[in-house]
């Protein structure tokens, strides 16, 4: 297969993503609303008018360096938001081809169908990485605007937030495999919801550090400093490895597509 044939698939998939209502909704939500919410949450935590119950909830963000707290919150939100957005996007990108019947129309082309399955996953990952990086940059800019300064543990917190988001992206990629298996957008969303529920159960049972879908949010500090400290290199590698596995699995699925 020549590069031009792969290029044709990239062009088509990129155009479909750019035109999709899904991407047009999710992109601004991730890169504008999440940073605004993060900065707003820290401002709320430091507000003297915050009622008692809410004050207790927001207490971790009420003290310490401002920008570090902004990055702490955005990392926590993005660790869940990116996974959810990626799951929905994978459901749309793969599922639509089966629902609309275009998976069959993609047969017999110069670019074999496995390239379509692979390009979808790679494009999904690149788009989510761009959104995540942009969200962190916007958060830093907003933080600077409200008086935050790059000092103290800002660098470390930025790295943690970035890694948590990247791990969440790795966890979103298997939903392309799920969408191809179920051939259903709603079915894929159902699996996503089930995984989120299962993650909650695993965290409650204390097994979060070894359940990949809990690792990004625990690393970002959603379970508190003690839970974050349990996330070691082993947990991170076990989570990250899902990305290449998902790429291999979805490519193999699209190579063997049948009855389309």
């Amino acid at each position: 297969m020549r590069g031009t044939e792969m290029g044709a698939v990239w062009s088509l998939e990129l155009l479909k993503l750019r035109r999709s209502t899904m991407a047009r909704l999710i992109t601004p939500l991730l890169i504008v609303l999440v940073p605004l919410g993060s900065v707003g949450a820290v401002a709320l935590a430091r507000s003297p008018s915050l009622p008692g119950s809410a004050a207790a909830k927001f207490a971790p963000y009420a003290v310490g360096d401002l920008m570090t707290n902004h990055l702490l919150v955005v990392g926590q939100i993005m660790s869940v938001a990116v996974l959810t957005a990626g799951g929905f996007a994978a459901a749309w990108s793969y599922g639509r081809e089966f629902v609309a019947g275009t998976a069959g129309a993609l047969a017999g082309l110069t670019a074999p169908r496995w390239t379509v399955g692979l390009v979808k996953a790679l494009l999904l990952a690149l788009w989510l990485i761009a959104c995540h990086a942009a969200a962190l940059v916007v958060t830093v800019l907003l933080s600077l605007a409200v008086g935050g300064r790059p000092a103290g543990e800002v660098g470390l917190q930025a790295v943690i937030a970035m890694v948590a988001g990247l791990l969440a992206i790795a966890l979103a990629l298997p939903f392309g495999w799920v969408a191809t298996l179920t051939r259903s957008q709603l079915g894929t969303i159902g699996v996503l919801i089930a995984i989120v529920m299962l993650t909650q159960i695993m965290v409650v049972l204390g097994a979060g550090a070894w359940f990949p879908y809990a690792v990004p949010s625990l690393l970002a500090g959603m379970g508190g400093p003690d839970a974050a400290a349990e996330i070691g290199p082993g947990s991170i590698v076990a989570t990250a490895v899902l990305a290449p596995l998902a790429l291999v699995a979805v490519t193999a699925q699209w190579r063997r597509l049948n009855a389309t």
Partner: protein
Amino acid sequence: MTVLELRGVRHGFGGRVALDGFCVEVGAGEVVAMVGLNGAGKTTALRVLAGRLRPDGGAASVLGHDPLNLPGPVASRFGQCVGAPLAYPELTVNENLMAAARLHGLSRSDAVRAAAEAVERFALSSWADARAGSLSAGNWQRLGVAAVTLHGPDGLILDEPTSALDPAGVVIVRDVVRELAGCGSGVLVSSHHLDEVARVADRIVAVHAGRVIGTLPPGEGDLEQRFFAMVLAADTQGRADA
């Protein structure tokens, strides 16, 4: 030279037999039409030939190759529209045609030219920059046929290509198919429109109960009457064999 071929293809869905030793062959420069009742096996046969369905048995061949694994240079000489077309509603007509041309192996500059020619040929100029999702069913079908013929394939499969078309669209598709055949392409088309297939096909094969039950010369007598007589004979024979 054989361009498209199914040899003794068998396939079932659950316990139901869809193809039962299906055989058809299309040569270069030939248009073969398949006619049959709903559920006869026409679309299933086309899906096998298009590489979209792995049959339980038998063999399929497109330009001498297994349709499930067409090499790129062979795929660039092939086109298929079975069911949903190669078109996306959020893309414009022109963008869909450009994408189809490039996916069929044309370079960017050739794709621009081919898409422009297809827009003209299929009378889609007024909608060239419109989102495909806004097209009528007939124009959507024109777009679907345009997307798989704009690269001038040597082997072409079309399933009910005129089912939603107005008379003008039917003439366009018929002319495109005949023109391709005139250039040496082998075309296999399924249709319920017996009058239409009589005009476009060199040969008509009648399909019933998952197999080809006979050939109908397109120019002779009442096609509909001969088709039903053939189906009745096949059913009678089937009951006798049972």
